[in-house]
Structure formats: structure tokens, C-alpha cells
């Protein structure tokens, strides 16, 4: 997940690099400010190893022509060159966001394949499924209720947090429904059933 100068490699893999590109797409910025915005925006989701991590990432983004220096921002005794996204940067960032659908599916498929290792021991699978379900319930329960006074219009961080929470809650609903389906299938395979019919 670390920032890499992978200009000649294939698709950019670093989540940190993509996250930094997103911040630059949002508005042109310089390295130290980007580090601060990164910490505020992605707290608990992504971490920077240090501020120098940002410099490495910026170099990688520049090598790939995803960002460029904003003319006239490198001056004074302590120059703070600002970076902005290029047209290619905007395009690639959009593509990466859309590609998250495949990434989510891949992650979920990985989980199912891992769980399927218990296919010969349905009782163990059911026990894990119970715990997985409880974890989903706890995550949904602990998603905070939002007061929407003053948040109904406009954008900003409050809207971003609310959108993230909503996505999380809806995704958890899909997982809970999936658990019901798997439990039924596994129970039938060992003749447990749910309630006797």
C-alpha cells in the first residue's frame, strides 16, 4: 500500500497515491498541506508512514503525468510548489473510482473462497457465519446517527462522512441477506434446517 515510484510498472497499485491524487483533484495543493489534508480526510482508513511519503508519491504521480506543477508557485526562500491534476490525471482517477466495483467484488470473492474451505465441516462454517453476522450487526449498530440539520444542502466533509456511512450501512444489509442464504444452504446440506417444517 505504500507510495512507490512505479512509473514504468503497470497500473498504479498504491492506494496512498490514488488518495493523494484525489486530494489534488479536489484542489491544487503543496506537499506539506497535502500531508495534513490526507491525515484529516483518510484518518482510520489509510495512513502515511511520514511526510516524506507524500514527496515519493508526488514524484510517482508526476512521472505518470497525472499531476503537474502549478506555474508561479515555486518562489521565495521556502518554495511551496503546488500541484494540480492533469487531464490524464482526472481521467485515470475517474477510471480508478469506477474500478472499485471490481475491487469490492474481488475482496468479497476472496472471503467466500476462504469460507468455502470449511465446506466439509458445515458446523464450523455455520459457527463462523454466526460470528460474521454478529460483526455485521455490530458495525451497522455502531454507525452513528447523523443530525441532518444544516447538512441537507451543499457539500463538504459532513456530506462525505454521511455518504460513506450510508454506503457502509447498505453494504452491510447485502451481507446480512447473503448470510441468511448461506445459512439456509449449509443447514440443508447437513439436514439441520432452521425451524422444523
Amino acid at each position: 500500500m505504500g507510495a512507490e515510484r512505479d512509473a514504468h510498472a503497470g497500473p498504479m497499485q498504491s492506494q496512498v497515491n490514488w488518495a493523494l491524487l484525489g486530494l489534488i483533484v479536489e484542489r491544487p495543493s503543496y506537499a506539506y498541506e497535502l500531508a495534513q489534508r490526507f491525515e484529516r480526510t483518510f484518518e482510520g482508513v489509510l495512513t502515511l508512514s511520514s511526510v516524506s511519503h507524500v514527496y515519493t508519491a508526488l514524484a510517482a504521480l508526476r512521472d505518470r503525468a497525472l499531476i503537474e506543477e502549478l506555474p508561479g508557485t515555486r518562489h521565495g526562500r521556502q518554495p511551496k510548489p503546488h500541484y494540480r491534476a492533469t487531464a490524464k490525471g482526472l481521467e485515470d482517477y475517474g477510471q480508478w473510482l469506477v474500478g472499485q466495483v471490481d475491487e469490492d467484488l474481488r475482496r468479497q470473492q476472496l472471503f467466500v473462497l476462504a469460507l468455502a474451505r470449511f465446506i466439509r465441516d458445515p458446523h464450523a462454517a455455520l459457527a463462523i457465519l454466526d460470528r460474521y453476522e454478529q460483526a455485521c450487526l455490530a458495525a451497522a449498530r455502531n454507525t452513528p446517527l447523523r443530525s441532518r440539520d444544516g447538512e441537507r444542502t451543499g457539500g463538504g466533509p459532513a456530506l462525505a462522512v454521511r455518504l460513506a456511512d450510508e454506503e457502509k450501512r447498505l453494504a452491510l444489509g447485502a451481507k446480512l441477506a447473503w448470510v441468511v442464504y448461506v445459512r439456509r444452504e449449509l443447514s440443508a446440506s447437513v439436514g439441520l434446517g432452521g425451524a422444523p417444517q
Partner: protein
Amino acid sequence: MSLLELQGVAKRYREGQLERVVLHDVSLAINRGELTVVWGLRGCGRSTLLRIAAGIELPDEGVVRFDGRDLASCGDGVLGTGIGYCQKLLPSGSQLALDLVMTPLLASGLASAQARSRARESLERVGVLGCATMRLSALDTSETVRLALARVLAHEPQLVVVDDPVQGVELLQRDDLLALLRSLADEGIAVLASTVESTALSGADRTLTLSEGQLRGPPLRELAPVVALRRANARSAGA
């Protein structure tokens, strides 16, 4: 002692030659000041569970106790005053919101002025006093749910049972409605709700799932510290 206790509850429905088990050996305890939400897919028996918990329907097996009394033997006496069952569907049409809340109060023997005053208080409590003189047909889904809550809260129940409160409620209004249920629990009322929406689990003290006739969730003993902390926070916020 918990306010509401279900022990070994079973319920079956006959569909032609087949007997369908809706609830199988369901046990549940609900305390004052707790918001409990049961999640389940459509047709899983959520509404049946809630009707049994409210004493509207009797189980085929098992016992339901409210405040230590077996609901099977106390008849309709508890419903309304002890337990408020929030009807999902309200009469639509020309009736005024205030009248809908007032009518059962008048039927219970309150004088008109007293019933009107209490109905208005109840509407204010759930945030729809402004709708008092509106016809039911003019209310949106969220207001209709609040009105249904006002109707049961006017009787000062200890337990509020509400079936699928966020169904059909616009996403932006859901959290406001859930916050209302949360605040009722913080006031000391036991709230039991059901939902098919995972978005309606936020803010609950306890969440359970119902599938294949079985209720699953964390044991009550794991809940006690959470509820104690929440109550302490609610007290300090109110101080």
C-alpha cells in the same frame, strides 16, 4: 426482571396441507430504556414476533410476560397503557392528525379538553405538532410514522413496539426517525422495532436477526455495560 420476556415462543401457520413454522423456540428479554431492533428479510416472521411481543397475537407454545404477568392471561388490559403497539397503517383520508391521537384518549374516558391537551403534547414530543390540523392524506411517510408513535405515546406506555418504522421513509429522513426512537429509549421507555433495512440498525442498543424462525443476537449480559454507559451519557447530557 426484564420488562418483557419471551420464553420458548413458537408460532405456526397452516397453509393448506402444510404447516409453516414462523417462530421456533424464540426467547427474548427487553429492559426499560433499551432500543432493540430485529432485522430480517421479508416474510421471515418479524411482524408475527412483534404482534406476539405486544400481546396482540398468542403464541402456540411458550410464554410472553410483561412486567412479570403472563400476557395470555391478562388479555387486552396491558395493550395501550403498558404496551403501545404502533400500527403500520393508519386510516387515510380526511381525518385530522390531532383527532387520530385524541380519539383513543376520549374512548379511554378522558374529558375533551384533557384529551386535546395530551394529544398536542404527544404530537409535539414526536415533532409533528405542526401537522395537528392537517389531514392524514396530506402527510408524508415519515410524518405518518411519527403520528402513529404520537398515538401510542399519548397513553404513556412502558414498552413501544413498532413494526418497520423506516419502511418507505426517505433515506434523508430515516436517521431523524431513528434518533426519535433512540430518544424514547433514553427517556426510559423500552422500544422494540423490526426492520428489513440495514440502515435502521444505527443507534440501537441491541440488534438481532430473525431467519428460519430463529432469533440470533448477542446475549443480554453483553449488553448491560453498553446500556449503562449510554444511560450515563444521556443523564450527563441532560444535566
